């Protein structure tokens, strides 16, 4: 019985063991760890640098030396796939961090302050949600230029609205609960109430939605890089490697240039979606807003 009093031991048991028992979560986690490990361990897994050009092997099919062949200027595709994974994963995580910062802060202000601040924040989300993502994204990319930082900025600025709405809805429903009123009566400040009491109790839907947002960010980065408005060559990313498949000749004869990056993206996004599904089954958040709200690709 004494163990029950240790808060973290209890939390770990309540959250993690059912998570690992969930088949979706487990499969997703294993896939995710495997793909991340491949990206992280890139220097030890391949002898080729992603930028080295092998002029004797241009667009060469896979062999023992180049495991997945080479691209149109003789760079090793396997190596670019591993190093490209670093770029794609980092860009997606940074973009989601960015949108979480904007979304959570504005959502908190709207949900806790209500009144004019709420109306203002909600109108701004309405406005941003009227722009089809790729229309605004390619316009911003054309103005700002194509680079990894701009991709992070574009995804972050355009995708925070779902998170803000979610946080606002959660806070609106929690702010009148007994424990919040008690805290307010004791003179606890607004910021403390929001961070200590409200956000912590809204963590379940927030975690599920942020997880799905990572999947979405990977898809958005890939699409922008694919049409040449995202991560710029020579830096590899899964999306810009697929840009090779804009030529019919490559699609028809050189499968090693586009099947591996394409499949990797699918596996990565699938892994994250499985984890999101597992989390939402175990944490069982009340559906304050439809999850689809942030899932627009």
């Amino acid at each position: 019985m004494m163990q029950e009093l240790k808060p973290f031991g209890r939390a770990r048991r309540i959250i993690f063991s059912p998570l690992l028992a969930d088949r979706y979560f487990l499969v997703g986690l294993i896939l995710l760890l495997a793909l991340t490990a491949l990206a992280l361990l890139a220097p030890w897994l391949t002898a080729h640098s992603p930028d080295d050009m092998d002029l004797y092997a241009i667009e060469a099919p896979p062999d023992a030396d180049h495991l997945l062949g080479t691209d149109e200027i003789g760079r090793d595709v396997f190596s670019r796939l591993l190093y490209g994974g670093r770029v794609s994963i980092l860009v997606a995580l940074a973009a989601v961090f960015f949108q979480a910062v904007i979304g959570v802060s504005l959502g908190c202000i709207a949900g806790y302050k209500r009144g004019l601040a709420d109306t203002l924040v909600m109108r701004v989300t309405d406005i941003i949600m009227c722009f089809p993502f790729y229309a605004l994204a390619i316009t911003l990319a054309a103005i700002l230029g194509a680079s990894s930082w701009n991709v992070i900025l574009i995804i972050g600025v355009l995708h925070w609205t779902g998170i803000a709405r979610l946080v606002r809805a959660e806070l609106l429903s929690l702010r009148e609960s007994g424990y919040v009123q008690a805290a307010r009566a004791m003179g606890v400040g607004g910021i403390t109430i929001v961070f200590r009491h409200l956000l912590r109790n809204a963590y379940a839907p927030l975690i599920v939605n942020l997880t799905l947002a990572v999947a979405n960010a990977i898809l958005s980065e890939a699409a922008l890089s694919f049409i040449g408005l995202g991560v710029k060559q020579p830096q590899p990313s899964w999306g810009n490697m697929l840009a090779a498949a804009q030529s019919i000749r490559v699609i028809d004869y050189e499968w090693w240039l586009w099947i591996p990056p394409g499949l990797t993206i699918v596996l990565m996004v699938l892994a994250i979606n499985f984890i999101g599904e597992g989390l939402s089954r175990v944490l069982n958040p009340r559906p304050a807003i439809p999850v689809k709200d942030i899932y627009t690709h």
Partner: protein
Amino acid sequence: MFSYILRRVVISIPVLIGISLVVFFLIKLQPGDPLVGMISPETTPEQKQEMLRQAGYLDPLWLQYLRWASRAVFGDFGYSLQSGAPVLTLIDERIVNTLLLAGSSLLITLLIALPAGIFLGLRRGSLPDIMASLFSFVAISIPVFFIAILLVKIFAINLRWFPVSGVSTLGTHDHGAAYLYDVARHLFLPAVTLAIGNIAIFSRYLRSDISHLINQNFIKALFAKGLKRRAVIYPHLLKNASKPLITVIGMEIPALLSATLLTEIIFNWPGIGRLSFDAIQSRDYPLLMGIVLFLAVITLVINVVADILYAVVDPRVRLTP
């Protein structure tokens, strides 16, 4: 009902103004000045400054915004740098193709997702349901352009059933049925590309809706009354399931338009997505901004229409403030 429509239209006015402010901000953000490429290189900086002043480029921002917005309200979105034609004329030439693509893909989506969603919702946890779940996960995890490449590889290059890109075969002058058949063949792959992800999303929504409704008391009461299964499902269950579907379709429209733009780029489909991509290649900013403004306004209108339709089906909505 009329007062609800009026209220819904009035609250979308600030959103419309917000959209125009965002686009104006983007216009101000674009590099260079409006005279780039229009004046001779011999013009002195003083002369250029004078020309910019006369064009109103150096006026205070609010004045520039008001001038720009009042022209945009009457459909004057400026002129394309590339072709010199009015932006709205260029959009007008292409919008039919975009609507054709988005519309036919929505049709394919509904034709498959509606029966599938109802079927799976009534059989939650069955083998077909589990298979469909897995399919949905894969479908929402594949990038649109990767689906496009796979379909092109299999159906256009290997099997040669469908053309690779474009809207009609060049060099042919078909009319009537032959022309329609040619366009339909070109339309098929991009429309299916777009539909795959949406089929997964729509059928999941409908499935969870139906399986939630079937456990409601009013449905149980109908069964208890002795009604046949068909007599419960078709008139009662589906009528109630159709309401949230309107919201879902309305909500999906921006995502659908967004994916349509991307699909047009890949399949070289001459709609406004392809137009905006070409505008980027030629740095045609006025055209690009016009397209963004146009698409945002269309989305806003669709959202308002969806809300009004919802109020038609569900009278409770009209009464809530």
